[in-house]
């Protein structure tokens, strides 16, 4: 119980700093000074102080979407195998429940984007759904491949079993699933090469197009929830493939978790510097590839690991 609460607090407070860290890494690698890792936190504070404004003609969907997005991210933060493997909401720590929660948040935001009735909102929503249609099955399959060895789809149990036997990570199943999960994480969090989080160019944006009409506290909520989703997905990756330290005492486990996510985030940001954004029409190609890898991971786990 305490572990889950500590996870939520750490992810809630730490995720803007993760985003700041990633921006700072990018800035330094590109030869800029950067705004410091606390900048997203300052942005959030500024946005929260502004008055809430909603465009004319928008309904309750528009207002509910940020709340749903943030709520689903918080629940996932509570149940995931980040710093502790036993969660008070054990049924929700299931692979399918977590994927469904993430999908619910995405759908809510897409509906919010559609509700504004503007061209950009609809365009962003349609693009987000295109990406999501391939991303969600890939997450399911990739983690499912890992769960076959354990015999349970409970994320905590998967992480615990890997923590007991760290060498089991070095298998084709884990490798294929890891590659698939990396691609999916990049797509789901809207980063290069799928989407560019720093652009407002109508030809390319996906996530930014949906949230274009949001302002003030609503926008702050969305930014915060997006940062949490990024943290949660990176944390899920760390928890499933490198769950060292998850069995330690809670404060230590939290520190190890923060360190792992920070390293992963920095690596991701560093990799982004060397990549160009993919053309939108080639994104399904990338995602179909990651889906194939996840499927092969499932197949391999059935046929190679039976011995």
């Amino acid at each position, binding site marked *: 119980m305490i572990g889950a609460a500590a996870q939520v607090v750490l992810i809630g407070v730490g995720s803007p700093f993760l985003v700041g860290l990633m921006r700072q890494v990018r800035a330094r690698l590109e030869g800029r000074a950067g705004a410091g890792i606390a900048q997203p936190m300052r942005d959030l504070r500024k946005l929260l102080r502004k008055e809430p404004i909603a465009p004319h003609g928008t309904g309750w969907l528009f207002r509910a979407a940020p709340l749903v997005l943030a709520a689903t991210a918080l629940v996932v933060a509570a149940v995931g195998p980040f710093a502790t493997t036993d969660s008070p909401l054990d049924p929700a720590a299931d692979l399918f429940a977590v994927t469904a929660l993430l999908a619910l948040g995405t759908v809510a935001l897409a509906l919010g984007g559609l509700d504004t009735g503007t061209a950009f909102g609809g365009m962003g929503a349609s693009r987000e759904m295109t990406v999501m249609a391939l991303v969600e099955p890939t997450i399911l399959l990739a983690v499912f491949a890992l769960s076959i060895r354990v015999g349970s789809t409970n994320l905590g149990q998967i992480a615990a079993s890997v923590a007991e036997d760290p060498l089991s990570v070095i298998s*084709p199943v884990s*490798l294929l699933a890891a590659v698939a999960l990396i691609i999916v994480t990049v797509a789901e969090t809207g980063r290069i090469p799928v989407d560019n989080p720093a652009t407002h160019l109508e030809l390319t944006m996906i996530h930014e197009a949906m949230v274009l009409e949001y302002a003030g506290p609503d926008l702050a909520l969305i930014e915060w929830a997006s940062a949490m989703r990024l943290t949660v997905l990176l944390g899920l990756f760390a928890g499933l493939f490198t769950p060292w330290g998850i069995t330690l005492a809670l404060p230590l486990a939290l520190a190890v978790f923060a360190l792992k996510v920070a390293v992963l985030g920095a690596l991701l940001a560093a990799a982004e510097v060397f990549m160009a954004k993919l053309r939108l029409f080639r994104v399904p190609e990338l995602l*179909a*590839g990651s889906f194939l890898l996840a*499927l*092969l991971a499932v197949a*391999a786990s059935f*046929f190679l690991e*039976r011995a």
Partner: protein
Amino acid sequence: MSDVHVQLLDLACGAFLLTGVLILWRSELAKIVTLFALQGVALAALIAVLGAHEGSAELAAVAVGIGALRAGVLPYLLRRALAASGERRETKPIVNVASSLVAAAVLALLAYAVCQPVIRLAPTPATQAVPVAMTVIFLGFFVLATRRRALSQVVGFLLIDNGITAMAFLTAGGLSPVVEIGVSLDVLLAVLVLQVLTTRMRAAFGGTDLDELRELRD
């Protein structure tokens, strides 16, 4: 087989399969050749693991030979052909990349299905990896059937051969070295002939698009 051997074998098989899939995925011809060389390394590693398990010097020698041929000589020849042709990309495959990846998924499942009787004959870790070899053979056929550039076709042909070699070693611990050398020379010769053919095609059509080869001549 000891645990370490099984894990190493599985790892080599995983790399073998992954490179096969990536060959289907990438469209730059230079990347395809690099991936093919990596697959040669994975194949050599696979044979070396089997050899280390059986403690056979013969298999180790075969592994070195196959590694040299498939990760060294053949990629070198392909690169030379590529540099001469001046083509960079597989521009228009008959089936687009996203669909061919989905088709690859179906082919993988098919391979797993048809290999079940073979695995049931002697369920060892090595035979359980047979579907991987079968998948690579299928992928090779698929590349042969859907790609247009002569170079991708050659790589498709070599994928099939890689798959067959892997299959032989996984099921029967390899063929006798004489047969193995014969097959390897055969492959080398085929690649050389195809290289000459590619040069001739470029001289005749200014490109290596196989769709140009429609007219019969005497």
